[in-house]
């Protein structure tokens, strides 16, 4: 019953003054066009969770796009003689020796700054690939139904049955050279199933809506119905699942790199650094801890971001 109350109030509140004459009396604020997206944005703007995570993500994006702005040191310059496992100089903000040096005499601060790019790229890239692939499969299966749905759903089930990390391990070990692109494609190849299921479910609900029937009655083509009516309405859950999954992909990339099947030297990545840092865990724990913290903070920001977006786009899920 609680849901009913909320609904009732919402519908009555949505009621705008009156047509014709009374419209001119309406407060100017309510006369503005207000799409569901802009309503969601209004909600987001007031959500501290969203603001904190958005600032963090923005910072990470700038870090990834222009690492040169943050440090003049190079992440690949190694001086074993001078800097071997030199501990952090905490007071010396943003300098090359701020976070210390690793076992090969490289500035950890520089590596953290430059490592952001790989993590963010993999995270965003995999998310986009997964969203496009999953949405396409889910939409086709959900809209057309019948044998096409049966086939696509079985394929989805098969992929879903593969344990993610094990699958990625197997796929990635077949590659000699593992660039960022290879890792991204391999992860997307195994990861699209969740979005496909979400998309299929919401498309099946939406295709029965009267506005879709109305478009059919007007003689709209299938492409128009899919692109104009179904996709925009199915997008909200897909966006929600995607943003929450993004953090997971970053964590997965770090895990794979740590296991030695993800990114590898000379690519600069937090996962790679965690992997090398493990050898000095006893005498220089900061070499491992600092990149790990970066991964955690990034994953957490994206999870928080996804949570806030979900609350704004679909208040019923709360």
């Amino acid at each position, binding site marked *: 019953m609680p849901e009913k109350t909320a609904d*009732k109030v919402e519908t009555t*509140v949505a009621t705008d003054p009156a047509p014709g004459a009374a419209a001119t009396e309406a407060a100017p604020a309510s006369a503005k066009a207000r799409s569901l997206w802009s309503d969601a944005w209004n909600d987001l703007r007031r959500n501290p969770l969203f603001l904190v995570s958005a600032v963090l993500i923005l910072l990470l994006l700038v870090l990834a796009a222009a690492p040169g702005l943050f440090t003049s040191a190079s992440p690949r310059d190694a001086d074993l003689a001078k800097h071997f496992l030199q501990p952090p100089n905490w007071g010396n903000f943003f300098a090359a020796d701020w976070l210390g040096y690793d076992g090969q005499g490289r500035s950890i601060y520089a590596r953290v700054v430059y490592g952001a790019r790989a993590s963010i790229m993999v995270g965003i890239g995999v998310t986009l690939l997964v969203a496009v692939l999953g949405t396409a499969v889910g939409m086709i299966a959900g809209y057309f139904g019948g044998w096409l749905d049966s086939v696509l759903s079985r394929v989805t089930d098969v992929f879903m049955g593969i344990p993610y990390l094990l699958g990625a391990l197997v796929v990635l070990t077949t590659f000699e050279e593992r660039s960022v692109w290879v890792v991204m494609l391999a992860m997307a190849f195994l990861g699209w199933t969740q979005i496909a299921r979400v998309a299929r479910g919401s498309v099946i609900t939406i295709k029965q809506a009267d506005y879709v029937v109305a478009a059919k009655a007007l003689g709209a083509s299938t492409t128009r119905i899919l692109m104009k009516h179904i996709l925009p309405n199915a997008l909200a859950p897909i966006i929600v699942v995607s943003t929450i999954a993004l953090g997971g992909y970053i964590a997965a990339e770090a895990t794979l790199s740590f296991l030695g099947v993800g990114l590898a030297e000379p690519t600069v990545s937090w996962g790679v650094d965690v992997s090398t840092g493990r050898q000095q865990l006893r005498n220089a724990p900061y070499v491992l801890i600092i990149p790990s913290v970066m991964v955690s903070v990034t994953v957490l920001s994206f999870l928080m971001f996804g949570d806030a977006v979900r609350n704004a786009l679909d208040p019923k899920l709360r």
Partner: protein
Amino acid sequence: MTTTAKTADVPAPRQDGDFEGPLLEVRDLHVEFVTRDGVAKAVNGVNYTVGAGETLAVLGESGSGKSVTAQAIMGILDMPPGRIPKGEIFFRGQDMLKMSNEERRRIRGRKIAMIFQDALSSLNPVLSVGYQLGEMFRVHQGLSKKDARARAIELMDRVRIPAAKERVGDYPHQFSGGMRQRIMIAMALALEPDLIIADEPTTALDVTVQAQVMDLLAELQREYNMGLILITHDLGVVADVADKIAVMYAGRIVETAPVHELYKRPAHPYTQGLLDSIPRLDQKGQELYAIKGLPPNLTRIPSGCAFNPRCPKAQDVCRTDVPQLYPVTERDGAELAGRGSACHFWKETIHG
């Protein structure tokens, strides 16, 4: 009585057992909801009373506050976003809004029961109806499983579900809409409450089934001498069963009257407009009378009388002064029992 509730005396201290007054009395109830667009004032000072064996119909359109009032009485309002800034709800003389959750829970279901519009979503789809009916007896009266089941069959017979014995193990989706509503009624009746609140009990049903269910409800009410609050938007359904009617608009009661009186001589322009806007079954009319405009936005209720932007009789006073519920009298001043109208021009409305 209800007409002048605002000026009525504060009730004397009451004892629980042998209370003489009305079963339920709502006094100056206000309910608000905090929404994205501001505070929606759903209920703005509602007063009504229901006695044992009496049927009060609360008539109103969506957003009139009729269901919110009922939810406040049942204590099932979502708070937040809802809140009750003002008002009292006396059940047998005790203010339920001042009770602890535990006390209220004891009243809910046992003393006051509710029937909802949508029986399918009010019943648990994974439990058999026999189990759900029996649960009332197991939880509230501590009956054994077997006894509870026997009572469930008895109840299903009582609401005239054919072959109750065979169907007691069936699930809600195996029943038709009318039968499900009967099960809802059976559940509400299970503990023989003093008061039943029925929120649009027949709206989702077909006309031929509507009549069956309404008759059943009226009959059971007489038999158990219960109070009944019937919440509806359908002027036709009300005409059949109610004793008195309260018409709500924008969270206020705008007219109260015994049922026959209301249809014969409405004393509020809103009621008059509603009655005129329904097409007749027994004659082909010309153009329908339509109340102009739309129900008000509850976050921006018009000043003065909330109905004034839509009212054909509106004058300046209607835009500034909120009309109280005036007692309605005959032309010569003779009292009309139970009649009230919250209109500055009630005389012109009823006496033409």
